[in-house]
């Protein structure tokens, strides 16, 4: 236990309000060296605020912010070993590309040759080697983005903070920057803390995701954990497409919804507890009426390139989103099928700790 590595950044019951608005509510989190973290949530969820607390642009009302175990609440931004890639890049328009990237190293008092080498290696890293003499307003958005990354990395930060850096780029550029950022992070081996509202981006890039809403961390875990086992309605709805219906947990491994009992893989709840049931659109398959666990009518469909997104309605009036490789006939009555492990059960108001504890309790049962 004593060997446990000290997290590079830790939040201990951090609170922050702007006037009457509670922006962060009792935040606890730990960030380890060398991983790619994402703070994911809708706008106003508090994700950028956490970033600003780490960088020192904001000061917490209460709680501790620790850097390598030392409290840094009152350390000014310029003395922290973190650097930020700002949302709109915030490049200095009075300097060219070289001077922007050289800004940090120059302040540190490096000599001319060191600075030159540093800037060159940073610009090469972001593939802008030939751009050092350009003015900022001669660059495209994507190139400005790269300069911003090079400028932040030129300070050799231990943690790089990225505040929705890709949100202003077009779809294709965003995709390729996602891969590139991930690659840069792995090559440098430093910690990245990335803020986004784009769940696809978060799932594609991160080692670990914090899902935020209303100033609270709703759930944290690996992308797979969060996608497969969303803890509540918000997370299920925010991460990926979801069908969410009300149900009753009749007993362990049996759930009742849309008028039928289904076998599933969740346990550890009270008998006849009211729950919410999540079924992912890609886990649902269209089949014949005889083979269907549910009978639905095809209401709408749209072609999405690699799949069809089909909307169907069951006899109780619940809407079901289905992703299918083949198109369906509009208005047709078809069966809907899925496996027991595709059914995810969410309890109302279950905290992350309770959720983890329950999961462990019945997973142990299974093993014994």
């Amino acid at each position, binding site marked *: 236990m004593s060997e446990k590595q000290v997290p590079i950044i830790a939040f201990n019951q951090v609170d922050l309000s702007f006037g009457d608005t509670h922006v962060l509510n009792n935040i606890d989190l730990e960030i380890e060296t060398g991983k790619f973290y994402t703070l994911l949530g809708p706008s106003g969820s508090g994700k950028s605020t956490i970033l600003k607390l780490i960088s020192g642009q904001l000061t917490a009302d209460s709680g501790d912010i620790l850097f390598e175990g030392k409290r840094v609440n009152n350390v*000014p931004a*310029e003395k922290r070993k973190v*650097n*930020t890639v700002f949302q709109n890049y915030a490049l200095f*328009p009075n300097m060219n590309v070289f001077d922007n990237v050289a800004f*940090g190293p120059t*302040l*540190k008092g490096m000599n001319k040759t060191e600075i030159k080498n540093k800037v060159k290696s940073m610009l090469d890293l972001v593939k802008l080697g030939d751009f050092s003499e350009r003015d900022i307003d001669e660059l495209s958005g994507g190139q400005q983005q790269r300069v911003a990354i090079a400028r932040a990395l030129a300070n050799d930060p231990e943690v790089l903070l990225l505040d929705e850096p890709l949100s202003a780029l077009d779809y294709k550029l965003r995709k390729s920057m996602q891969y590139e950022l991930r690659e840069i992070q792995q090559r440098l081996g430093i910690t990245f803390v990335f803020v986004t509202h784009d769940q696809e981006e978060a799932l594609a890039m991160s080692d670990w995701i914090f899902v935020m809403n209303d100033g609270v961390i709703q759930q944290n875990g690996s992308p797979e954990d969060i996608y497969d086992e969303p803890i509540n309605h918000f997370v299920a709805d925010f991460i990926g497409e979801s069908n969410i219906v009300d149900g009753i947990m009749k007993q362990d491994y049996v759930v009742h919804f849309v008028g039928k009992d289904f076998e599933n893989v969740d346990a550890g709840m009270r008998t006849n507890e009211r729950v919410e049931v999540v079924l992912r659109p890609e886990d649902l398959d269209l089949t014949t009426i005889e083979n269907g666990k549910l009978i639905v009518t095809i209401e709408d469909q749209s072609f999405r390139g690699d799949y069809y997104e089909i909307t169907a309605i069951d006899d109780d009036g619940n809407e079901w989103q289905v992703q299918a490789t083949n198109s369906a006939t509009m208005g047709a009555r078809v069966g809907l099928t899925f496996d027991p492990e595709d059914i995810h059960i969410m309890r109302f108001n279950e905290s992350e700790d309770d959720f983890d504890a329950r999961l462990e309790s019945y997973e142990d049962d299974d093993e014994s």
Partner: protein
Amino acid sequence: MKAKQQRQIFYIVPYGIWLLLFVIAPLMLMLFQSFTTSNGHFTLGNYGAYFGSGTYLRMTFNSVWYAFLITVITLVISYPTAYLLNQLKQKQFWLLLVILPTWINLLLKTYAFIGLLSKTGTVNSFISFWGVAPQQLLFSDWSFLLVAAYIEIPFMILPIFNSLAEIDPRLSQASHDLGANKWQTLRYVIFPLSMPGVKAGIQAVFIPSLSLFMITRLIGGNRVITLGTAIEEHFLVTQNWQLGSTIGVILIVAMIVTMILTRDRVRKNIRK
């Protein structure tokens, strides 16, 4: 399309007439007069008289020197003020207070200073409270600079304030983030980016200061003779309009030179 152009021409007619009557025509007259003798013959004699006379050259030097001093004093006071105003919560309100004195007539303000600085004025009665004998405050270089700077300060603060307000606050955040302290941020980021405002302020103060004459008379007591004073003398006292026009032309040239020196350099690079 053509009808639209005609309508646009129509809009500029009133100001066009104004410009012609009160700007272009007087300038032409001035230029013409500066090259003529009193009975209308062409001559370069006026310019010869100007450049040949130590008095006029000294006046020119005086004008430039005092305008320079006024500009420096104003800038030193205005930049920190504009910077501070920009940090305040109610900045528009405070800015209004700074602008307010410009709505009051220049002569009124000048006379108010005579009331303050004269031998029996407020300042002297205040210091005599501590037993200091009345001082000669009016009719000195210092009182002239003080009053001129007082009058020009709002014209310096306003453009600097505007250019500071336009700077994205995230740039200072980025600067701190990269390790710069407050002073370094001001020096490397804020100040260079506020240069357009500083230049506009210098134009707005230096150029009018070149031709100040009323303050030189009322506050400076004619101790400070500038080109403005000389022009007034020639037109109103000695009635030598030709030489007055010549000095006027030289003053205009000096203004144009100042504007060229302080203009924003147009970027050579073409935006993609």
